[in-house]
């Protein structure tokens, strides 16, 4: 069953939006790759939690916000394999486009396989530092903040943490069908009244920015929408 952030109300009407928060911690898998071939082999079997971590974990873990490459695979290809072609091809993968982590894993493998076939030396070329395959553990908790209406949610949004945004907008993609986000999922329960707002939310690409940027964008989008409606 899909886990929802919507709390059903006792009268059977639309439930409150429950603001949750989360904390993420990295765990070493003990799997390391010193060559592209080793990385390819490890990616075939590694838990999908690792794929998730290396694409999305950077938003909640100590990383520099203005990253040259938006995922760890691309950064490693550039910094430690010194393969700019591969780094660029990996960097352009937008995980938002993939319905499942398995599909994302498939795309990663496809790009790496293609590159291994292009350059004879790549299967055995040693990187200057290993790729450390890491997974994460996420702890989700209730902030005890609730919004009964979208208007209330607009007032709450500026005061929720970046990690809350991560939970409701990014982590939701693992929990909801069709790569959804919790805000749209909740708004869809209002009999289509907020379809336009849902469309705008669904159009946000959360991948190539920081959580701070995403929070600003969400705030702006909600406020703009309700200003327009009020006119």
């Amino acid at each position, binding site marked *: 069953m899909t886990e929802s952030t919507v709390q059903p109300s006792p009268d059977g009407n639309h439930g409150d939006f429950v603001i949750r928060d989360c904390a993420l911690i990295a*765990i070493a898998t*003990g799997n390391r790759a010193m060559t592209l071939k080793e990385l390819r082999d490890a990616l075939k079997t590694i*838990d999908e939690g690792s794929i998730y971590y290396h694409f999305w974990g950077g938003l909640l873990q100590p990383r520099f916000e203005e990253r040259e490459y938006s995922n760890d695979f691309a950064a490693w290809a550039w910094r430690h394999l010194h393969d700019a072609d591969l780094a660029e091809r990996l960097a352009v993968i937008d995980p938002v486009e993939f319905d499942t982590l398995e599909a994302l894993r498939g795309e990663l493998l496809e790009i790496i396989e293609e590159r291994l076939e292009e350059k004879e030396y790549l299967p055995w070329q040693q990187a200057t530092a290993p790729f450390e395959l*890491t997974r994460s553990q996420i702890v989700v*908790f209730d902030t005890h903040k609730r919004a009964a209406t979208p208007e209330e949610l607009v007032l709450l949004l500026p005061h929720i943490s970046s990690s809350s945004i991560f939970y409701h907008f990014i982590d939701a993609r693992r929990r909801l069908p069709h790569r959804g986000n919790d805000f749209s999922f909740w708004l869809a329960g209002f009999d289509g009244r907020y379809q336009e707002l849902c469309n705008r939310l669904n159009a946000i690409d959360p991948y190539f920015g920081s959580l701070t940027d995403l929070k600003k964008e969400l705030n702006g989008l909600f406020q703009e929408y309700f200003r327009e409606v009020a006119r």
Partner: protein
Amino acid sequence: MTNLLDTYADVAGQDVINHLRQLARPLRGMKVIHVNSTRVGGGVAEILTKLVPLMRDLEIDASWEVITGNEDFFQCTKNMHNALQGDHVRISEHLFNVYEQVNRENAQHLRPRLEEADFVFIHDPQPALLLQNCPQRRGKWIWRCHIDASHPYRPVWKYLQQFVSSYDASIFSLAGFAKSLPHPQYIIPPSIDPLSEKNMDLPAEEVGAVYDEFRLDPQRPLLLQVSRFDRFKDPLGVIQAFRIVKKFVPDQQLVLAGGGASDDPEGEAVLREVMEAAAADPDIHILLLPPDAHRKINALQRAADIILQKSIKEGFGLTVTEAMWKGKPVIGGDTGGICLQVINFNTGFLVSTPEGAALRIRYLLRHPEKIIEMGGKAREFVRDNFLLTRHLREYLTLILGLHYGAGDRIDLS
């Protein structure tokens, strides 16, 4: 009444503090004990000095125990430290016996408290054998390794591994430091305390006073490396870089500031070599500061234009974090945790040689606007990622993770 936690809201943000309170709610009343081998001096003691009271503010029953040992014990653990960092140090049977005996002796009086604790954090190798000496333990035990053990001297690691394997989890500062162990290995970088004497804001007069005190010229560029006199910190490489730059920028000054070396025989030898290398140059200042000269170091870091940490081996490099918090770009060795903090052309530069360091010093001295720009980015990067509050959040997350099971997702909502 304002508690300690609230004082961090001004620096880290109220959101961060609220987050901690919510995360800690399920852990109220739990007994958490940290154990290390020194109450003062060193990064571990500095972190625990604040981390433990902060946990208590979150209504966790946290405490901190310190083991005691004799000279042979500390000689053994110093050798272990170096061996874990890759030095081929042979440790005699006698020293290993002392190490085991001292752990047994400490367990005698710590056992009742440790065995009833819900979570025990053992910091570094010194108290690592307490676990074997607490057979009735009921909580989870976590070994926290603060050392870069990515390429350890195998015989010493094999010895330690047989003991740390029995822990429920371990913590390393970077994924690259993790070992082959039969339990979850959490990755938690260390942190700095922004309100400590070492990192707090200082009055301009206090910063200015270091020029007089150490006979430095406030009109000339000041380079600084703060570190123990240790080969892994490469102070001789820093002097070499300074000499290369001096051909192009003759008026710069270099300060190498570090603690005394009384507990570290190898440090004395390195210090002698550094003194000899610097002897002929009045613009190289070697400062031996007492271990509690935190404000002085703080003032020096604030007075400096560029900070160096040209280590060839480094655990995490908290001196880098400290410098960045003061808004300074750092030229750091391309090793260990320095790579996590120094982002080329953003918060400083990573270098591998004295020549590389010299190149980047010249670049920054030539572009003073970059010193300000990178320094600003460095401070914000630390604010977001390397303050004590983030460290505490990750400890709480780990505790929750171990308490509620090892799955990828723990839903407490």
